[in-house]
C-alpha cells in the first residue's frame, strides 16, 4: 500500500521490532500568522496515531498541536518476524487521515 504522507519502516533484531514512522503533516497550532497576509493560519494537526502488528494494536496515541511539523515517531515492540506486516494510521482534526503498511525487515 503506497502512501503519500507516511514513511514507515520496521526492522527486527533480537526478537524485537523497531518501528519508525515519518508523517508528512503541517501540524499548525492555530497561533502562527501567515507572513504575507498577516492572518492566522487555521489550526490543523494530527490527533491520533495507531500502530498495529498483525491486527493487534501495538500503540495508540493522542497527540496535540505541540507535536512538531512532520511528526517522527519511533518505538519498539517484542516479537515480529521478517516478512510480517505493521500498519500505521493517522487521523487529524479535519477528519483527514491515511493508513500505510510496511513489511518488517
Amino acid at each position, binding site marked *: 500500500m503506497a502512501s503519500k504522507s507516511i514513511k514507515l519502516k520496521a526492522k527486527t533484531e533480537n526478537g*524485537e521490532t523497531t518501528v519508525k514512522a515519518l508523517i508528512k503533516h503541517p*501540524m499548525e*497550532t492555530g*497561533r*502562527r500568522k501567515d507572513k504575507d497576509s498577516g492572518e492566522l493560519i487555521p489550526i490543523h494537526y494530527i*490527533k*491520533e496515531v*495507531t500502530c498495529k*502488528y498483525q491486527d*493487534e*494494536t*501495538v*500503540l*495508540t*496515541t*493522542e*497527540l*496535540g*498541536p*505541540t*507535536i*512538531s*511539523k512532520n*511528526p*517522527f*515517531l*519511533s*518505538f*519498539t*515492540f*517484542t*516479537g515480529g518476524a521478517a516478512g510480517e506486516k505493521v500498519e500505521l*494510521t493517522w*487521523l487529524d482534526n479535519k477528519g483527514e*487521515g491515511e*493508513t500505510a503498511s510496511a513489511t518488517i525487515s
Partner: protein
Amino acid sequence: MKTDMKRRLFLKASLATGAVGIAAGAGLLTPRSVLAAWNTAAFGAESVADALKAGMGSDALTDSAEVMLDIPKNPENGAVVPVAVTTTLSGVESIALLVDKNVKPLCGIFYPGKRMKPAMSIRVKVGESANIIAVMKSGGKLYSAKQAVTVTIGGCG
C-alpha cells in the same frame, strides 16, 4: 475507504477505555466525541496540573529515576526538539509528554499495547526555554521525570 475509516474509529473507540471513561464520567464529552476518543479537556488545559488531571486522572507525581529522558539540553530550534523517553518500570499503561511553559502544555498521550516496550521517541515544539516532563502511569501511580531545555528560537510563534 470511508467505511474502512469508520470501522477503524469504532474499533479504536471500543478499545480505548481509560481516558474516555474518565472524560465521559466527568461529563466533558458528548457521545459523539466519545467515539473519537480524543481528550479535549486534557489538550485544552493551560496548566500542567490541569492537563494531568484530565489526561492521566491525577496530578500527584512521584519523581522517579526509573523514568529516563533523553533530550538535547540546548536544542536551539524550539520547533523541533527530539524527546526520547524510556523506563525500567513495568506495566506502564500510558505515557504523557508535557512542556510546562507552552500555552497548552500537553503534547501527547501514548497508550502502549501489551507488546510494546514502554519507550518511544517523538519531536515536540517548545515555545520558550522550559521543562519537558514525561509522566508514566503504572499500577495506578504516576511516575515522572523532567529536564530543562533552553531554546533560542521559540517553536510556537
